[in-house]
């Protein structure tokens, strides 16, 4: 077994796999981190990613142009994100329940629309894929590196810079840490939260788009496979820090790809696929146990009303 792991072909394959798997996780977690820093929590990441995945596949299918698909995916993500933020702030909706609702809803909706658009159940037709950034040949295997990889890393770096090095980041974080003080400082807390909701939605949309028309070239039922939830876990694991999320998503991506590799090469190995699958979740639980009450802001439910 150990010889297999040191085999260069296997290592390269795992490396590329990890880089591939990390992208939606990185996008999801960076979006969620930014949102949570402003005081909202979006539990519907999985659902929004799925909706965007569908939208991007639809766009690419209908026009034959994956960039249109990308546009569709991002727009759906942004709108969903804004809707979620708006309802959370204005109607004081319970964000957890709403998130679960969106997740269930999108499973249903995408299924119905899949049938409507492609007349097949559970999966669509193949669509034009996003072009890749690099094509690398190693041994007798070819690997692609997607544009989304540098994009997502750039977004993570950008988010970090925004949050910690600019005055806008200060404003965002104040809304999450002490909305009352932010309000007293003259900040329009709801507006800030709407903006971060859109930003998060765009990133979730990118993640969904990536999964549907870059990693794959087809929409299949539930293709987000829990990555939305893992993103939420990643937020905690990386301590609400976009930079740490890069490393974290790489780690989680590695385990993601490892379990595929392991189950593809059949059971009887040192580390069963199920164990590998458990690892990101277990690690998150442990992180939560350690971090405990490390919240980023008490004002989760929305800005206090200025009565008088």
């Amino acid at each position, binding site marked *: 077994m150990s010889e297999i792991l040191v085999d260069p072909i296997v290592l390269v394959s795992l490396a590329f796999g990890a880089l591939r798997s990390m992208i939606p996780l990185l996008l999801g977690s960076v979006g969620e981190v930014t949102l949570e820093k402003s005081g909202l929590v979006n539990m519907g990441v999985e659902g929004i990613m799925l909706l965007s995945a569908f939208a991007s596949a639809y766009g690419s299918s209908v026009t034959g142009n994956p960039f249109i698909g990308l546009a569709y995916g991002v727009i759906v993500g942004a709108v969903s994100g804004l809707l979620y933020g708006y309802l959370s702030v204005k109607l004081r909706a319970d964000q957890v329940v709403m998130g679960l609702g969106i997740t269930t809803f999108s499973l249903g909706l995408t299924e119905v629309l899949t049938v409507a658009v492609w007349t097949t159940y559970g999966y669509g037709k193949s669509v034009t894929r996003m072009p890749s950034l690099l094509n690398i040949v190693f041994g007798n295997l070819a690997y692609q590196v997607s544009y989304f990889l540098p994009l997502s890393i750039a977004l993570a770096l950008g988010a970090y810079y925004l949050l910690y*090095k*600019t*005055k*806008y980041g*200060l*404003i965002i*974080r*104040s809304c999450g*840490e*002490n909305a*009352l*003080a*932010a309000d*007293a*400082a*003259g*900040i329009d807390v709801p507006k800030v939260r709407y903006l971060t909701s859109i930003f998060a939605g765009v990133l979730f949309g990118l993640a969904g788009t990536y999964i549907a028309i870059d990693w794959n070239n087809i929409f299949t039922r539930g293709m987000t496979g829990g990555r939305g939830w893992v993103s939420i876990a990643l937020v905690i694991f990386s301590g609400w820090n976009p930079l740490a999320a890069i490393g974290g998503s790489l780690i989680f991506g590695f385990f993601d790809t490892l379990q595929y590799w392991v189950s593809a090469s059949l059971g009887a190995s040192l580390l069963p696929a199920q164990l590998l699958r458990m690892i990101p979740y277990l690690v998150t639980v442990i992180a939560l146990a350690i971090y405990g009450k490390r919240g980023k802001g008490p004002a989760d439910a929305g800005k206090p009303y*200025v009565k*008088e």
Partner: protein
Amino acid sequence: MRSEPYVQVEGVRKVYPDGVQALGGVTIDFRKGEVHGLLGENGAGKSTLMRILFGQIRPTGGKILIDGGQVNFNSPRDAISHRIGMVFQHFMLVSSFTGFENIMLGLETGKGFRSGQDVRKSSEALALRLGLKVDLDETVENMPMGERQRVEILKLLVRNVDLLILDEPTSALTPLETDELLNVMKRLKGEGKTIVFVTHKLREALSACDRITVMRKGAKVDTVEARSADLRSLALMMVGREVLPETRKGTPKLRDLLLEVRELVALSDTGSEALRGVSFQIRGGEIFGIAGVAGNGQNELIEVITGLRRAKSGVVLVGGVETTTKSPREIYDLGLAHIPEDRLGRGVVPALSVKDNLLLGLQFRPEFEEHMMMRQTAIDENARDLIRTYSIAATEDTPVKSLSGGNIQRVVVAREFSKSPLIIVASQPTTGLDISATEFVRQELLKMRDEGKAVLLISSELEEVTGLSDTMAVMYEGRLAGFKRPEEFTAEEVGLMMGGAKVEQ
């Protein structure tokens, strides 16, 4: 100090939708280069007036004038852009940010990113010039209260505020920090700034201010020059003359010692000393009232007595049993009832029905519980009895959250008194209640006392304390003074004690 007015409030009125008049036509002028004291007790209207000036509250009538021209503020942002700023009693800072980040927060600077350098430079320059010792890179939560306050002040100065309102600024400060603050105010004055110093503390007002405006019951009493005023006259103005109570209660028939507090020392949430050696005794059949402006340790005292806060040292004895380390439940079981100040927060469970609320704290008693099941008929009957006895305008199944404030308080009183307690601790029991509800609560307290219970009444409303207490004391900065029958106090004496000018044990 110049003599023309800089900022004026003219005839400012504030009436709330429920009819309560907080301010009735106040006119004050503030001048450049002066420290102007705003003196008064709780409910005098000082904070309301200042919040109007700061744009947080809209006035129902009157005007605000700056250099003679009228201005309208829709938000604090407007006020700040007109160079008026306020430092609240409870600081509005983000504790996990540094001092500098708090100053930067929400600041409109020229460029979007990385424009902090200019702000940094001017902050440091200001701090140096005015002697404000602040470590800009320290996180606020690691700063002592005095330094946090300086951050708040710097925040305003960086925004070119010329009139600074300081709302009860010394309440969270140590004596040393207070002196430093007074020095800072002097320097600011020297630069031509205006400071409005809102306080209830007489000595500080006299030593720091040029002029002092005294307010009472939502109106201005007078504005005087500090150098021609003295403690006594200020105290009198602050408290008014009709404070002397009519004795409607008769002499108490004293019984055993029920509640005793000895040398109680306790810390507040911010770590400062809230109680500095409080001692008193209450016997059955008497009402002991503690008057004083809120924030002088009353909350901490109640919390220690009811078991919600640990004292640093000292002893509490309920019915002779030491309770300093006991849990709230154990203390209740010993016969202590509590009418809390924060009705909706601690007193009731809003989503539940009246009868469920009347059960709160009593649910384990044998008359209501049997084999872990609730004896529903007994509970219903109990509820109906209490509703009748205390005239609660609801049925036993009505959810408490739909009741008026007065009725909610009736529920609380009904429940607490139905415990047949030996001691009743009542904290601000009539805030926000209408006349009939207020009368009702006061009558009930007197009834309890006539039945031989010990009553501890803490209220920032002076008439309430003087009207109900058999023995009275005034609380100031964690200490009690007085311990006389209310009629033995003079109004100015009370005023002086509330303002901290006369503290003896």
